[in-house]
Every structure is written in structure tokens, then in C-alpha cells.
């Protein structure tokens, strides 16, 4: 492999992902659904299997040697994640089940401790349900008020009214990159404005971390949620990073083993962060896989990955627009400086289910539906879109396969 060299041979990257060499009915797999979940490199698969073969044991509880090895492996995954996002300390990284649980943790723990009837939480119209429903739940329970940052016609955040929206707000919780539009939001600026208004800045970085250089300190964020499975790691583990001062002041979320300092018949005291938020046996094997995924991404370099995806996204936007003209509507900004490789579109008046069905016949995997962003669908004036999303293992030929598949849809439905 070429990973140590400065110029990367992208053609060989796909070889690291065993599933991408699978053929179905004699055709290769064209995986364009990484915004949903990313494929896994051999290194991650091997790390998990080696761990189970050699060092699998409980962590933090037993004195025998393999338990020590397992604890070290788990904690070194935490350190790897902290390094990836430039967190000041590994202990500020809390392992959860996924980004959804991380955001629920924020709403349930920070929210219940700090929000009451009439308090304001500001969200954006392009949030994933994972950053909407936990706040709706709190609104139903506590009577908090939700306000929404609206979108510009090209799918960016309309910040003209931001000061009014943030006036009196206690929380601003927003995505760093839309999972539908691909839009990259101005995270540092939003964190700064949130703080100026006295609000907590929560970032849903689920789509951002896997594809960009992330620096939570430069962002000035308070809490940041993301998922392993979108960054080449296994499913079943997610992360909440938070400034220690904030995590420290938050009450626990789930109660049970591992999160306590002591338990009596009368009550309990909590362990320090991060254990305070990691009740029960954690996703051990998954943490080891995640650690390997981080190392894999670091070896290639997040800046290089972002560069590769910018070029690929430009190619995709140009190819689709040139080949289909008015027959395709692509949502979100056209400028790849402010968007990632998530491309949602409407094709003729075909339903996304039909589009994705025809593409599947050619082994082109895309997502059709509302992408867990129903309020955003309403803003776009559609029920659903077709979404192709790229990652480091995709190249121009995958985009060509997508475009050829769309031609196939035209043939079947006869226009």
C-alpha cells in the first residue's frame, strides 16, 4: 500500500475494503451510500477479529492480564478519537451507542438539568431527526420552545435573523454538515454567536468527522456528537465529545455498573467522566475496531480525504448536470468549498423508490427516502429524494455508473 507517500494512489484504496470486490450477478458493487453508513477496511475487520481471538476480556473490573490488555485497547481507542478531533484530553470522549444516543444524552442530561418551561433551544431546518426528536421529547416534557434557523434557496443556513433567534436561547444545536444537502455550516461562527448569546453550542458532526479535518477546539464547541459506523468503524459505537467542565457538571444519563463511584441502600455517587456516562459493559470489540478505523483514516490523512471528495463531488455535480440538464434537480449548494459529497436529487418526476430500484439492478447502492429529515423535506417541497454519497473509496467510475443507471430508469419508465 501507498499510505506513507504524500500522493495517494486512490485507485488502490478500494482494495482495502473487501466488500467492494464483491460481485452480484457478475457486476461489481458501486457503493454510493456512505452518508448512511460507510464500508469497512480490512484493518478494522482484522483488528476486531484479532481482539476477540487474543485479548477479549472485561475492562476495568478484573486483575488478570488479558483484562488489562482489553482495558488498554479500549482506552487507546478513546485516545485515537481524541487525537482525530484535536480534543484536549482523551477523557473528554464519551463512548455511546451511536450519535443518536449521544444527542439524547445531551438533551436528557444537560437539558433536564438546565432547561425549564419557556426556555429556548435553537435548531436548524436541515437537522437529522436525531437532533430534533430528543428536543421535541424535552419540549413535550418541559414545555421548552424550539426555534429554527431557516435555509437560503441554495440550501445554506440563513443567518440574517440569527441574533433574534438566539436572543434568550439556552442551546444552539446544529449539524456541521447536512446529511441531505451536503451543506457545510459555519461551525466556528455559530459556536461564537451561541456563546455571545449565553447559549450552549452543540454540534452534530456525524457527517463531518468522517470526511474532514476536525478540530473541536478551533470550533469552540461545547458538545460534539458523531458515529463510528460512518467513518469506516463498526456499527454499535458512537461518541460524545464535550468540554470537561461541561461534562463534569452534567448529571448521569443511564445508571448501572461502571458509572458509579459507590452504591448503598440509600443512593449512589458517580464515577468521574467519561465512566459516568458509560453505564454497563461498553461496546468493547467495536471500540477496538473504531480505534483501527481512526488509524486507517489518519494514515491517509483527513485533509487528503476531503480533497479527494471535493474533486469527486465536483465531477458528480458536473456529470449529472451535463447529462441530465433540466431532468435532474440537485439540492444544496453547488460550490464544493461549502458542501461535502452527499448529493440528493430529484430525477424527472420519478419517485426515489423507483430510481433506487432501477439502480439496484445495476448494483448501484443509493438511498431513497426522507433521510431522517422530514422537516427538511417539507422545506424542499418533496416527500423524498434519491441520495448518492461518496467516500474515500469511490471514484469517477462510480459516478458514471450512477449516471448510466439513471439513463436506464429513463428507458424503463419511458419518457
Amino acid at each position, binding site marked *: 500500500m501507498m499510505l506513507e507517500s504524500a500522493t495517494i494512489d486512490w485507485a488502490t484504496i478500494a482494495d482495502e475494503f473487501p466488500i467492494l470486490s464483491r460481485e*452480484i450477478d457478475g457486476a461489481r458493487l458501486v457503493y454510493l451510500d456512505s452518508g448512511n453508513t460507510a464500508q469497512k477496511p480490512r484493518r478494522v475487520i482484522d483488528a476486531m477479529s484479532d481482539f476477540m481471538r487474543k485479548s477479549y476480556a472485561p475492562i476495568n473490573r478484573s486483575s488478570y492480564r488479558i483484562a488489562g490488555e482489553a482495558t488498554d485497547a479500549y482506552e487507546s481507542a478513546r485516545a485515537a478519537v481524541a487525537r482525530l478531533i484535536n480534543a484536549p484530553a482523551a477523557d473528554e470522549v464519551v463512548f455511546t451507542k451511536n450519535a443518536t444516543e449521544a444527542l439524547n444524552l445531551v438533551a436528557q442530561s444537560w437539558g433536564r438539568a438546565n432547561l425549564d418551561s419557556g426556555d429556548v433551544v435553537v435548531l436548524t431546518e436541515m437537522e437529522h431527526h436525531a437532533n430534533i426528536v430528543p428536543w421535541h421529547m424535552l419540549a413535550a416534557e418541559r414545555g421548552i420552545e424550539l426555534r429554527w434557523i431557516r435555509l437560503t434557496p441554495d440550501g445554506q443556513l440563513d443567518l440574517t435573523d440569527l441574533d433574534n433567534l438566539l436572543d434568550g436561547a439556552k442551546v444552539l444545536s446544529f449539524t456541521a454538515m447536512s446529511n441531505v444537502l451536503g451543506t457545510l455550516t459555519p461551525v466556528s461562527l455559530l459556536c461564537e454567536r451561541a456563546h455571545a448569546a449565553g447559549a450552549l453550542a452543540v454540534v452534530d458532526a456525524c457527517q463531518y468527522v468522517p470526511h474532514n479535518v476536525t478540530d473541536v477546539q478551533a470550533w469552540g464547541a461545547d458538545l460534539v456528537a458523531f458515529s463510528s459506523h460512518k467513518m469506516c468503524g463498526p456499527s454499535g459505537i458512537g461518541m460524545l465529545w464535550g468540554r470537561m467542565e461541561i461534562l463534569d457538571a452534567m448529571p448521569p444519563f443511564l445508571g448501572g455498573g461502571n458509572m458509579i463511584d459507590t452504591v448503598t441502600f440509600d443512593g449512589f455517587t458517580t464515577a468521574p467522566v467519561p465512566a459516568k456516562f458509560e453505564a454497563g459493559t461498553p461496546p468493547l470489540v467495536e471500540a477496538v475496531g473504531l480505534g483501527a478505523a481512526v488509524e486507517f483514516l489518519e494514515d491517509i490523512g483527513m485533509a487528503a480525504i476531503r480533497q479527494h471528495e471535493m474533486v469527486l463531488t465536483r465531477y458528480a455535480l458536473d456529470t449529472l448536470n451535463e447529462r441530465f440538464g433540466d431532468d435532474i434537480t440537485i439540492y444544496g449548494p453547488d460550490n464544493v468549498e461549502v458542501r461535502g459529497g452527499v448529493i440528493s436529487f430529484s430525477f424527472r418526476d420519478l419517485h426515489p*423508490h423507483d430510481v433506487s430500484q432501477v439502480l439496484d*439492478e445495476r448494483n448501484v447502492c443509493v438511498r431513497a*427516502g426522507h433521510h431522517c429529515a422530514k422537516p427538511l423535506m417539507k422545506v424542499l417541497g418533496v416527500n423524498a429524494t434519491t441520495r448518492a454519497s461518496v467516500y474515500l473509496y469511490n471514484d469517477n467510475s462510480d459516478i458514471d455508473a450512477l449516471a448510466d443507471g439513471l439513463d436506464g430508469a429513463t428507458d424503463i*419508465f419511458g419518457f
Partner: protein
Amino acid sequence: MPGLEDLYREIILDHYRTPRNRGELESPPAIRADGHNPLCGDEITVYLALDGTGDDAVVSDIKIGGQGCSISQSSASMMTQAMLGKPVGEVRALARRFKTMMGIEVDDEQQSDADIALGDLEALQGVVKFPVRIKCAVLSWNTLLQALDTP
């Protein structure tokens, strides 16, 4: 792997391109029921006008509103054609027969259901080979049953 020709039969495409009985009925007097597919966000509205009461009431008019994919739209379109003029008892029986064809278990299945002719609706049989699309095919049927159960 089942081919797309099993799914997109000509008659299905025809009903998709030219859906029958689309529109609205004033409600009341017509019964209105809304259905949606939580997976994809498709929404469908069934407007049902009945002449008479109980199981002897006859479907005097039926209209479909909303949006959906070729499978849900063509299924709704063919359903309206099959239902027009039928007594409610037969409507329910046909719905049971259709859902059984889609591989869905119905609790009130009756022996005589097997004899019911599906006509054009047979074309939707291929959907069974594409399990994620079964929900699309039965969306309008469940919404119709919901309309019938509206007090």
C-alpha cells in the same frame, strides 16, 4: 435475482403514468382516510363514498390523493377500479385476497377468499420478490380499510 421486468409490468407502468380515479371527494359526506409509509414518507388519501349502510353498502365513488412511487400509485389506481360498485363485504374480501397475495397474514381470512379473481391486480404479484416494496403496494389498501373502519 428477480429481474425488474417482474416488478415493472406494462400494466403497472400504464396505471402509474395514467392513474385512474385520482382526485378528491367532498368529505363529509365521503369518508376520508390518510395513510403514510414511515419509511419513505409517501402519503396517500382515500376518499370513499358509500351508498347504503353496513356490509350491503356499495362503493359509489372512490378517489385517491397524495404522492407515491410507481408501485403504490399503480396499486391504488387498480384498487379503485376493482372497488367501484362493489358492496363493502366484497371490498373487504378483495382486500384480504390482495394482502394474502402480497404474503401478508390476515387474521380474518376466509376459505372463499381464494376464489376471488384479482384481474389486473395479479400484475402486482411480482412485488413479493422485492420485499421492501410490499409496503408500497399495500399502502392504499390499508388506507381503504381504515376508511371502512371509520365510524
